[in-house]
């Protein structure tokens, strides 16, 4: 079952088509990493999901509720942080949460619980305007999770956090996810999404270029194998004969592009059967950043 579903979401600003046929499907209980370059349309998507842009909203469904008809209910089951943390600067940290308490209930116990979760107990009586950048970000997250929403929609939640803060946020997201919360987060810190996300959506120039599990994304990507053989010319001939594509070659080494594990295995078989002398063979680990760059460069073409 999907927590967030959009059908061919479009958004136009003047002559610019910001989003084109975005069909999201965010599975329940997943951590969905939404990736894209600056200006790709990530924040626009998030604003549309929350009803903050003037679109019909009849093709956006959250927990099977239509944004068009049930926006109040949807806002109750979602917590959000959009672009930058929003809070009242003249109020203290705990007063910001007390303000939410008047709306959602929960009492002092919930305020203390949330402050502990985001590690802001020491700053509870500090004016929000006096907080550091990282602490402001935490307060923004505290506001988003205060009412224990089923779905969290977070736009660049790791902005301004130091490595320790990022580590703690990652722990918090995983903790919330283990409690059954669906987390939709956009970030440009690809390494972080690599560690946290279970599902990935990649958007570029308003188009969805990939959507699926992280494993599906990694599976579909070709990887590069760096070989240092005894006779490079012979190896190049052999590999070309057997249909492999050579990415690079120099006097001593060859770089081959292979697809799935099966292809890699086939290449090794060719080399072994032909009794090729190999001094070194290494596979470059493909991370999310490379995949992301590959996908968006394809889109550029």
């Amino acid at each position: 079952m999907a927590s967030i579903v959009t059908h061919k979401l479009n958004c136009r600003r003047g002559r610019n088509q910001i989003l084109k046929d975005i069909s999201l499907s965010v599975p329940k209980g997943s951590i969905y990493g939404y990736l894209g370059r600056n200006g790709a349309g990530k924040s626009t998507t998030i604003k549309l999901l929350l009803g903050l842009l003037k679109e019909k909203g009849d093709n956006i469904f959250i927990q099977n509720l239509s944004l068009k008809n049930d926006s109040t209910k949807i806002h109750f089951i979602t917590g959000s942080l959009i672009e930058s943390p929003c809070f009242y600067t003249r109020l203290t940290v705990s007063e910001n949460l007390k303000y939410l308490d008047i709306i959602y209930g929960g009492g002092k116990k919930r305020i203390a619980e949330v402050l502990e979760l985001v590690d802001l107990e020491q700053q509870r009586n500090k004016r929000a305007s006096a907080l550091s950048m990282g602490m402001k970000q935490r307060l923004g997250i505290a506001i988003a999770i205060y009412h224990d929403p089923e779905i969290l929609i977070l736009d660049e939640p790791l902005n301004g956090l130091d490595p320790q803060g990022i580590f703690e946020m990652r722990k918090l997201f995983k903790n919330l996810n283990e409690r059954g919360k669906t987390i939709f987060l956009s970030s440009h810190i690809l390494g972080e999404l690599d560690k946290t996300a279970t599902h990935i959506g990649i958007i570029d120039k308003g188009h969805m270029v990939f959507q699926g599990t992280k494993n599906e994304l990694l599976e579909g990507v070709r990887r590069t194998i760096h070989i240092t053989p005894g006779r490079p010319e012979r190896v190049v001939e052999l590999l070309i004969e057997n249909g492999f594509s050579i990415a690079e070659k120099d006097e001593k080494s060859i770089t081959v592009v292979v697809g799935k594990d099966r292809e890699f295995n086939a290449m090794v078989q060719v080399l072994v059967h032909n009794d090729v002398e190999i001094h070194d063979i290494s596979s470059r680990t493909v991370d999310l950043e490379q995949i992301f760059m590959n996908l968006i460069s394809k889109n550029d073409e």
Partner: protein
Amino acid sequence: MSDTFRAAYASEFYKLSKNKEIVVLLLIPVALTIFVAGYLYYDVSQNPVGEIDGSINPWQGMFGKDVFQFFYLLYPILVAIFVHACCDIEYKNNNYKVLFTLPISKHKIFIAKVLFIFITVLLSVSLSYFAFLLCGYLLGVVLPEIGFQNYDFRSVSFFVFLKLYVALAAISSIQLCLSLQFKNFIYPIGLGMFLLVFSTIVWQKDFSDFIPYTGSFKSYLNMLSENTRFERLDYLNLCSVLVFLVGSFYLFKRKIYD
């Protein structure tokens, strides 16, 4: 969770009342009333007038005149600053995003905000009214030669303050419209001041009744002439409240998409 008006009002009240500076702002007229009474006491003690012949009502001719000379200029400006501060709290940090992702209907949030503004202004005018009466009674005790105790001015001053409040409610609605339209405080405050000065200049013209800011200046004249009647200006001010609140709601809803 409660998508109730009570939750909307309580949360708005909590948030805005924490901004003590903007609430204290509306206590300035009370302080001013006390100051004028204090000055009157000082002035009369320094220059004794002897027995007054009774033809001058000190509530209207001395105290009221001086207080309302300040009020007609000060109150609209204070209201303009107060209303803008109520909007500015949402402009800072782009808090409209938080406001519009709360599970509360937009119209309830808007009505809660408007009610907070109207109630606070009413509280300020009521406190000024009570301060005015109290200072008058005290002056009657400490300076019996002036003759405050010879007049019952409660009814007249009540209507003068009521008409002032109606004018301020209309001014609040206009200022709310301006503050929702312009983020920069220069525009709403500047336009408010311009309209105040303009209405003071043209108050004798027939069309001035259509400018709610005239109500502020006319409150001064009402005090001098002991005018307690509800006139065209007051009814037009009540209509302005409705018209500008509808406009403000439209602008408020548009904030979702800013």
